[in-house]
Every structure is written in structure tokens, then in C-alpha cells.
């Protein structure tokens, strides 16, 4: 049985990736063709011609005036996926239409609904408003992961690994040593993991971007809305500086680290990452530094998880993992994902 939940919204791309040219990406095992119409909207449909399955994103297929012409036999489709012309005959078969997908462009992402179209509700798409807020500056990227998406969820829900895998970048001893609080709101579909370090070493990622040095307060608040969107609300402040009673927090630095975890196939994942900050908004040097640092950190995860995927894919079934306190949030996420995928949650918690 698939571990990938269907009837869900997933991030397929950044909006800036899709222009008035053919763009293909596989999401949840489905090859999907995108382009931005001349009116500016993103359209999405199957990337396989109904005739002989030739990929419509593949040259010599081409886009002509908001219609895609198959490069093999010339089947031509409109932006709604309906075939408007076939070679050699005037009658177009009624069934000649590509599967089309509902898409929503929001918070810099192109979200796509995978599953029953009748169940798609754009109001359920989780938000990441910082990525397009004028009060924040954002850097972003996407790295391909040759591992199942659940391994990235495990990774991001337990940040104690920063101390070991990302030492010298974002990891310091306090991350692994500080207890966490975990909350689950089943109704809202949220897993929340808080790690508030009130006296921690400032890692290079934050020292060089904020200018703070020595000991700092470092709060990490994870808000994961399965299956796709993960947000790390990161607060960096001088020792002893707390938010004001009215919620304002002028003496702290805020970084919103956002991941979109999109299964490509059962065993590969699109790892979208973005870092939005509310300081040094116009400092290109800070943008370049954070982009380079975060990409490096993501690639450290990618290298580790690619190895882990190979290990898991080749080991006998039934391996019993050991979970400890740091895994409290990760286990909650696994259970919610298994429920969404229609799996037995207890089985998934012990071994996904």
C-alpha cells in the first residue's frame, strides 16, 4: 500500500519556475505538465499524450498560443487539457482530453491537488505568508531527494540532529540537549514541536546574519501540517530578551524556515526550502549567506537520507526501530501521515 496520502494539496513548484514554456514535474507518481498561460495563470495537466503516451514536455512537443502540440503526431490540447486537433481527420474523439489538475498559486508556491477533484478545497491549503510579505526577505531553493518523503518528515520533526549532522552551520550542543514540548491538534491537522533554548551558543548561520555573538536565546517552534507544509518559526534574541506582553518582539530576530515536502514517487521527494527573515531586508550579502548556508544544510540532509533510503530499501521487512524522547513529534507526524494515507497507524509508528 502506498504511504503517500492522496486527496491532498502538495507544492508542485515555485511560481517563478513556471513561465510561458512547457514545464514538467512528477508529483505523487503522476507526471504533470505545467505552463503559465498568456493570461498569467498556471495550468496543469497530464504530461502524456492520450494517443501514444509521448511526453508533452519533451521536444519536439511545443507550446503554441496556449495550446500544446505533441511532438510525436501533433495531437493538440488547450489549457484545459481538451484535445482540439488530431492529425489527418476533422473529428476529434470525445475522450481525447488530458487529465487536468486544480492548481492554486499562493505564498510563492504552486499548489496542486492530487486525488479526487470533487474533494479539492483551496481554503484548506496551509499558509506561509512570510514568503511573500514585504516585511520579510526570502531566499529559497529545491533539492531532489532520493529518499521517501517520510524520511524527510522524520528529519525535520526532530531537530536534535542539527547538533550532529549540521555542526558548524546551525547545530550547537544545546539543540540536542534541550527538552521539547510536543502538541498535536488532530482536528486542525497540526503537529507542533517547541524547543526553547534560553541560553545557547549562537551558530554561524545566525551569528553572521544577525550580528549577535556569544550566548543567545534561541527558540525553535515547528508547525507541521501533514502532509506537505513544514514551518520552523525561529526566534533569535539576546540573553533574557522576551517578547513584550502585547506580542511585539522588536529586539529579537525572526526567521521562518519553510519546507514543502512533496513526494515525487514512493522513493523520491522534492525538498523545497525557503528562509524568510525580518531583518537586514535589503542586505544582499545576508541573503547570499543564508541561501548558501541553508542549501548546504539541506544537502547534508539529502546525503544522509539518500543513504538511509538505500539501507531501508534493502533490509528485510519488520526491522524494529528504537524511539526515544526526541522522537515524540516525529512519531505524532508519522501517525497522522499514516492516517491520511489510510494505513494502520500503529504499524507506521513503529516502522514506516
Amino acid at each position, binding site marked *: 500500500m502506498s504511504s503517500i496520502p492522496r486527496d491532498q494539496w502538495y507544492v508542485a513548484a515555485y511560481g517563478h519556475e513556471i513561465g510561458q514554456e512547457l514545464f514538467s514535474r512528477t508529483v505523487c507518481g503522476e507526471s504533470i505538465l505545467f505552463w503559465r498561460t498568456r493570461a498569467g495563470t498556471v495550468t496543469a495537466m497530464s504530461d502524456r499524450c492520450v494517443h501514444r503516451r509521448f511526453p508533452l514536455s519533451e521536444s519536439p512537443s511545443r507550446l503554441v498560443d496556449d495550446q500544446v502540440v505533441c511532438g510525436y503526431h501533433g495531437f493538440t490540447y488547450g489549457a484545459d487539457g481538451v484535445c482540439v486537433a488530431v492529425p489527418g481527420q476533422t473529428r476529434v474523439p470525445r475522450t481525447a482530453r488530458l487529465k487536468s489538475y486544480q492548481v492554486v498559486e499562493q505564498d510563492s508556491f504552486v499548489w496542486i491537488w492530487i486525488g479526487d477533484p470533487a474533494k479539492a478545497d483551496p481554503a484548506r491549503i496551509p499558509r506561509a505568508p512570510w514568503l511573500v510579505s514585504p516585511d520579510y526577505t526570502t531566499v529559497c531553493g529545491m533539492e531532489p531527494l532520493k529518499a521517501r518523503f517520510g524520511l524527510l518528515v522524520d528529519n525535520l520533526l526532530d531537530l536534535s540532529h542539527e547538533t550532529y549532522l549540521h555542526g558548524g552551520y546551525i547545530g550547537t550542543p544545546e539543540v540536542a540537549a534541550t*527538552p*521539547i*514540548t*510536543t*502538541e*498535536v*491538534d*488532530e*482536528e*486542525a491537522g*497540526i503537529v*507542533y514541536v*517547541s*524547543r*526553547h533554548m*534560553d541560553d545557547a551558543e549562537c551558530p554561524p548561520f545566525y551569528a553572521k546574519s544577525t550580528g549577535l555573538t556569544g550566548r543567545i*536565546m534561541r*527558540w*525553535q*517552534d515547528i*508547525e507541521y501540517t501533514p502532509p506537505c507544509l513544514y514551518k520552523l*518559526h*525561529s*526566534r533569535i*534574541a539576546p540573553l533574557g530578551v*522576551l*517578547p*513584550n*506582553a*502585547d*506580542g*511585539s*518582539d522588536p529586539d*529579537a530576530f*525572526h526567521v*521562518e524556515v519553510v519546507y514543502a515536502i512533496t513526494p515525487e514517487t514512493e522513493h523520491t521527494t522534492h525538498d523545497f526550502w525557503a528562509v524568510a527573515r*525580518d531583518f537586514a531586508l535589503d542586505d544582499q550579502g545576508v541573503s547570499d549567506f543564508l541561501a548558501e548556508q541553508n542549501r548546504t544544510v539541506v544537502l547534508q540532509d539529502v546525503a544522509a537520507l539518500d543513504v538511509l533510503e538505500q539501507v531501508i530499501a534493502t533490509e528485510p521487512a519488520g526491522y524494529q526501530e528504537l*524511539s*526515544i*524522547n526526541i*522522537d*515524540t513529534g516525529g*512519531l*505524532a507526524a508519522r*501517525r497522522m501521515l499514516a492516517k491520511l494515507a489510510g494505513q494502520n497507524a500503529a504499524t507506521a*509508528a*513503529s516502522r514506516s
Partner: protein
Amino acid sequence: MTAMEPTMEPTRMLAGREVLRVVWLPGSDLLLGTCHCGATHVAEGPIEVWEWLLAHPIGHTPQDVPDPAFLTGAGAAR
């Protein structure tokens, strides 16, 4: 939007009607699970605490929470 209480203890971040909460008790290796009804259970690991929490709420009515659900960032007003 209201902010979280100005405390360093991140013990209440979500404000929904049926929030399950697990706090790693300071200075120990124990986990304190709290059901949305207020019942608590101390466990020695995450598997045990989730098993208890997920079994416990069955059959009882969640308490009313006066405030609407909201999320805060890591101490920031949004």
C-alpha cells in the same frame, strides 16, 4: 492576534479544542502527557505516552475552550 505568555516554557502553543500535549519534564527523562480533558499520564518514552493519549480521549466530551484557535510564531506577533 494575542501573543503567547511571556515565558520561556513552551508548554501551550496550540489552542484548539482537542490538543494533546507532551512535555518533557525538566531535569528528567520522563514525558508528561496531557489529554485535552486535563487528565495526565507520566511515561518513560514517546510510544507509551502516545498510546495512552490516543486511548484516553475515547468516549469523553472535549472541554470548551473559549478562545478561537490561533497560532503564534516563536514569540513573534504576526
